[in-house]
């Protein structure tokens, strides 16, 4: 007959061993919990916003902008009137829209606000096709339409609405634009590829011309090209937009901005994850440390178990399970803390609460791995203790 230990007994042995040293076990588990909470929340917070950026990148990769370069006095020279129809004629171009600067016009909440407090909101003339071409979203109300060409209405960018303190459009709302009141008919959601629109009040080209005397072509053209021909389109854009002075034209691909933001986020995630990894390493060393102390303190118990018929591997298993259970408890607590932290961070940032499944799974996996690795050396030490020596000490 061989000496054997049931699996259920081994697990209960480990839990009893931990419960006997409750404070010590709790503190070591807390170390693991903090590290795992850090890892889970970093993954949770970063991955969800990164996924959002990647989605945008997929949608925005074929967007190009053409803008007039600034002149020496800081004023923007408009593009030729012909630029927009010419660009629309390039075969792979799917849609074109444009905005024009309305210079020297400020936006204020009302006439009572001093004229110097412009809050940095710019006034842009926009085509009705702007939102569709940019794949933007109207958060509230509606966008400029054909009637807007004749009436003083405006659509605010997301940040502009926030700065002006306009939360909803349930009641007719007006803002003071360049000496007269404009009715706010809509508010846009943030547009990542065209952040300049977030801080703008948009009016129609018709009103810009009738009311503010704006002349000339647009200052910036946005266009969507066939995704397979983006580079080819980009290479002919400046010459098409301004055949006479193509050096004054800047062509950009706004999705480059997203790529840069994703890269920056990736770098931060890597940094925080490695900090979490270091915290986990420290916690694991802490567990190894208390397990080694535990083995020293429990020489008598180890000797007794060997006398009762425990094999070396039974003793090793007991200590290995203790350290793994300790880490698993810490890991579980850490996941809860991490999810709560992610939820709080998402709520504060105004994002939907979304924790990717990989975060808790990776967190628990890392905790179990740390606990098992931390327990290996103490478990081996306990198992190698000669039973007669273990019993002699006290």
């Amino acid at each position: 007959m061989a000496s054997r230990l049931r699996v259920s007994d081994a697990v209960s042995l480990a839990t009893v061993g931990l419960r006997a040293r409750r404070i010590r076990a709790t503190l070591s588990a807390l170390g693991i919990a903090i590290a795992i909470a850090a890892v889970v929340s970093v993954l949770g917070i970063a991955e969800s916003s990164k996924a959002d950026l990647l989605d945008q990148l997929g949608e925005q990769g074929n967007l190009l902008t053409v803008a007039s370069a600034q002149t020496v006095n800081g004023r923007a020279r408009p593009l030729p009137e012909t630029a927009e129809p010419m660009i629309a004629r390039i075969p792979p171009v799917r849609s074109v829209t444009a905005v024009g600067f309305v210079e020297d016009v400020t936006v204020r909440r009302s006439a009572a606000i001093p004229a110097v407090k412009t809050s940095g909101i710019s006034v842009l003339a926009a085509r009705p096709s702007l939102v569709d071409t940019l794949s933007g979203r109207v958060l509230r109300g509606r966008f400029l339409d054909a009637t807007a060409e004749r009436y003083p209405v405006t659509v605010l960018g997301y940040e502009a609405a926030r700065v002006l303190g306009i939360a909803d459009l349930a009641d007719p709302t007006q803002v003071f634009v360049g000496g007269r009141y404009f009715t706010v008919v809509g508010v846009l959601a943030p547009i990542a590829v065209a952040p300049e629109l977030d801080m703008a009040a948009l009016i129609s080209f018709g009103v810009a011309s009738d009311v503010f005397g704006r002349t000339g072509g647009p200052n910036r053209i946005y266009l969507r090209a066939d995704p397979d021909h983006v580079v080819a389109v980009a290479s002919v854009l400046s010459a098409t937009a301004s055949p006479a002075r193509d050096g004054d034209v800047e062509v950009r691909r706004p999705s480059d901005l997203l790529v840069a933001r994703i890269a920056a986020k990736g770098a931060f995630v890597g940094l925080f994850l490695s900090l979490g990894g270091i915290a986990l390493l420290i916690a694991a060393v802490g567990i190894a440390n208390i397990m080694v102390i535990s083995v020293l303190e429990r020489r008598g118990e180890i000797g007794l178990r060997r006398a009762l018929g425990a094999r070396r591997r039974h003793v090793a298993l007991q200590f290995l399970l203790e350290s793994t259970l300790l880490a698993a408890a810490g890991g579980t607590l850490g996941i809860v803390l991490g999810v709560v932290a992610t939820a709080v961070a998402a709520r504060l940032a105004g994002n939907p609460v979304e924790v990717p499944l990989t975060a808790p799974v990776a967190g628990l996996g890392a905790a179990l791995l740390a606990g098992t690795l931390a327990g290996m050396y103490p478990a081996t030490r306990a198992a190698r203790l000669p039973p007669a020596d273990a019993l002699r000490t006290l």
Partner: protein
Amino acid sequence: MTTALELCGVGKVYPPPTAVTALADIDLVVEAGETVAITGASGAGKSTLLSILGTLERPSSGTLRIDGVDTSAMSDPQLSAVRATSLGFVFQQFFLLDHLSVLDNVATGLLYRGVQAATRRARAAAALRQVGLGERIGHRAGQLSGGERQRVAIARAVVGRPAVLLADEPTGNLDTATGAEITGLLAGLADERTTVVLITHNADVAAAMGRQVHLRDGRIVADSRDGV
């Protein structure tokens, strides 16, 4: 009579730096059901002898047969199995797990036999009644007196009905009256066909056993069975 334990030319030399010769040329046969006291001064080799009899230590030379089976060639797992099934241990320091109940301490005696938990507890309760601690089952081991602790340890040693019980100074930490009770309990085990080998300094304890073996400097110098 069958032979429970048989030592044949057993010696034990500890490795350097101590290089102490703890036992030399020990021949000892213990029949089943015998009660043997091993006496001797400190350093005479009593504890080493008991460790070797209990397979907790291997001899440097010679052989140990348990129930007629040579243990020299056995692997560590095989020796563990022998301890789990055939040997029971009682120690001077009791080695109880203080955070466990009395019942669970005794049930630990069957843990490495792969017996189910419910069966272990039922047999532990019976063993506790046998040593007169039937009412203390639910107490924590840490709450007991010295004599009660040693009774729990004896119950743990006999719960698996081992053929041989090995006791290392079982009364060493107890007062005289309590020591006498424990000695009586151990001597009484022989009635149940358990072989008892105990180490003691105490002449009264030794006298309560059926046979006395005296060690000096690692050698047997007197054995009451031989009439020496």
